[in-house]
């Protein structure tokens, strides 16, 4: 009888814990049970560490399987650490889940999240600086091996908070067969905005668009490329100011609007992020702006000869970097921190970064990854794989501010209202600027 009562109490309390009523992060049922077992069976240093690892997928291809396989291999090489990968949807879903988990005082141990969430995570006091781990394990030799363009969104006020992993830039994909068909040189993609318009007009025919630039999901990212090409990034380095309303940006947004409305070489209205690669593969658009993260997807599915190039320039070439970094979370105990660092370090090894880049199309984040044999060989066989890496020379930090969600929504809304013809580019950008200023005001006190 007493046993039954105890069991009932136990199950009720674990129910309550599962429902998220727990306020203490360390008192999950597993944690309570573990020390007892560990003391009984093994000395402390061999204690098994379980890690929860959240990761998103934002491009086509079997990425969940690749990530799961990598985690499996890590687990085999490190019998004391058990990484449990949890696929958490899109970047946005992942951020939401992590924020909810942090608020519920039950954060994952390690996660891949947009590099641009840095200020948000700092405002929430949710992530650990990694400087001590880096200093003990490779130091500047390790960290300086990453491309500076990728580190830009990882560091602030002299501290490093995340390690680049699935990183990208925007590149221009173009259909060489279509170029040949209309008498364009397939080895000469458009070099500047004027050529972009001119080539698109030539390439456009019934059932095929000249070019597609996605405007759903995160249109700010695509637009940022145009802003950079026209001279200046959209925000200050400390994430407290934005520069949406500038003559250069108005000019750039006018070009977007004109591509659809005036020149009619791009579909009108909002263009879906996910259908653009399908349109390209189906030959429904001759050129597309998209993340290099889709390179392997395009490579394995294109039934035509395609090329990859820098984005067309205005004053100069330019593209924002994008993609996800590894973060480690506050409120996890030291053994988990150590284990998480081991996992991050392992996942970013040059050989693995090279393989990841080959499997997905993401840019390998470290210079030494391009020195590996397999990467050298891959780039020789498939030179397009180096385009995004080379473009890094002209790449800058992705839009990232305090209160990033609100700021980027204000900007996305403005871009969409211009693209759908509801407001003039100048008016749309003015409104976005005003709204963002309001949102950022508390951080500029």
């Amino acid at each position, binding site marked *: 009888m007493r046993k039954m009562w105890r069991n009932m109490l136990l199950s009720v309390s674990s129910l309550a814990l599962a429902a998220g009523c727990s306020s203490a992060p360390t008192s999950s049922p597993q944690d309570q049970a573990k020390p007892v077992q560990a003391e009984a069976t093994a000395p402390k240093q061999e204690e098994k560490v379980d890690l929860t690892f959240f990761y998103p997928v934002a491009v086509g291809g079997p990425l969940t399987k690749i990530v799961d396989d990598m985690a499996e291999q890590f687990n085999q090489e490190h019998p004391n650490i058990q990484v449990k990968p949890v696929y958490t949807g899109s970047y946005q879903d992942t951020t939401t889940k992590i924020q909810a988990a942090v608020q519920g005082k039950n954060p994952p141990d390690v996660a891949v999240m947009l590099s641009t969430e840095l200020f*948000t995570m700092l405002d929430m006091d949710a992530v650990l600086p990694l400087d001590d781990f880096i200093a003990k394990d490779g130091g500047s030799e390790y960290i300086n091996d990453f491309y500076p363009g990728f580190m830009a969104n990882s560091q602030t006020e002299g501290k490093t908070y995340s390690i680049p992993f699935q990183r990208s830039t925007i590149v221009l994909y173009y259909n060489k067969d279509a170029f040949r068909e209309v008498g364009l040189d397939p080895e000469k993609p458009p070099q500047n905005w004027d050529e972009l318009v001119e080539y698109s007009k030539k390439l456009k025919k019934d059932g095929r668009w000249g070019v597609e630039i996605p405007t759903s999901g995160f249109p700010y990212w695509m637009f940022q490329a145009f802003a950079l090409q026209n001279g200046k990034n959209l925000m200050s380095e400390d994430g407290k100011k934005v520069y949406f309303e500038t003559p250069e940006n108005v000019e750039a947004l006018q070009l977007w609007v004109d591509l659809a409305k005036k020149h009619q070489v791009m579909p009108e209205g*909002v*263009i879906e992020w996910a*259908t653009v690669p399908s349109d390209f593969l189906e030959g429904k658009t001759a050129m597309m702006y998209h993340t290099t993260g889709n390179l392997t997807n395009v490579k394995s599915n294109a039934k035509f000869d395609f090329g990859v190039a820098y984005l067309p320039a205005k004053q100069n070439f330019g593209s924002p970097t994008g993609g996800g970094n590894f973060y480690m979370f506050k409120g996890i105990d030291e053994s988990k921190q150590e284990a998480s660092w081991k996992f991050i370090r392992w996942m970013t090894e040059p050989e693995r970064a090279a393989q990841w880049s080959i499997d997905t199309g993401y840019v390998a984040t470290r210079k030494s990854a391009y020195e590996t044999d397999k990467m050298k060989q891959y780039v020789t066989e498939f030179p397009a794989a180096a385009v995004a890496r080379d473009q890094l020379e002209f790449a800058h930090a992705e839009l990232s501010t305090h209160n990033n*969600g609100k700021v980027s*929504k204000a900007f996305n809304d403005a871009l*969409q*209202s211009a693209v*759908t013809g509801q407001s003039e580019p100048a008016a749309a950008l003015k409104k976005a600027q005003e709204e963002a200023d309001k949102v950022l005001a508390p951080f500029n006190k």
Partner: protein
Amino acid sequence: MGKTNIYAWLLLLPSLIFLILFTFYPVLKTLVLSFYQADLGSPEPFFIGMENYQRMMEDDVFWKVLKNNLWFALGTVPTSMALALGMALFANKVLRGKGFVRTAFFYPTVVPMIAVANIWLFIYTPEYGAISQLLQWLGQGQINWLGDQTFVMWAMVIMVIWKEAGYFMIFYLAGLQNISEEMYESASMDGAKPWTVFRRVTFPLLMPTTLFVMVIAVTNSFKLVDHLVIMTKGGPDNASNLLLYYIFETAFSFWDQGMASALTIVMVVLLLLLAAFQFFGLDKKIHYN
């Protein structure tokens, strides 16, 4: 008596715990939080009185979303109810394949909203979508249903009518089967025409059902949100954004919990007012037999 009371409370306890945990406590907490500034910029929430509500009044997006929601309700509720009634009358009368007809009408209700959204995403997609291919076949131009501010709300309304009508039909069908045959017999003896029968007998006797369905339909039109997550994310430029999705965004994308709570309170009050009007205003005009 003491014993019976304790016994009764014990029986009620499980439901009571859940009701308190998941209804009363959150409602109270939301109300309290709506007077606080609780966002990313403030590590500890602090009291700001009505400021969240004031900011809301000045927020263009809020007004746009509210307006969208009213149009959405006006677009979906009467049409899906009329359609439901028509389908119920048909399914009640039809002699052959009764089961098939009812299943066909009812099946959209069984499909989860996420799946429905995916199906219609395919239907609306430019270039590949079903509508698009039909238009192409007819030699017509493309319409970017979900990417155009003028069409996106219509697209949502049509999809939701398709989804909801079958569900409401079930209530009407039950209502119809409660009307006694004698009514119709006496009506036919009086030589009443079908339209008169419907207007004088069937429809009035279905009024309790209609009221019930209407309350559900109106609340549903404010509660529906999953399709936006899949199909438009409220875009382009908030053209398809609805109140609940805006609350979700405010709470989980911007992490502004104070404002999200204030928005929630507004929504709850709005729904209460609507339901109260329906019950106390319309109830008087209804005959219950």
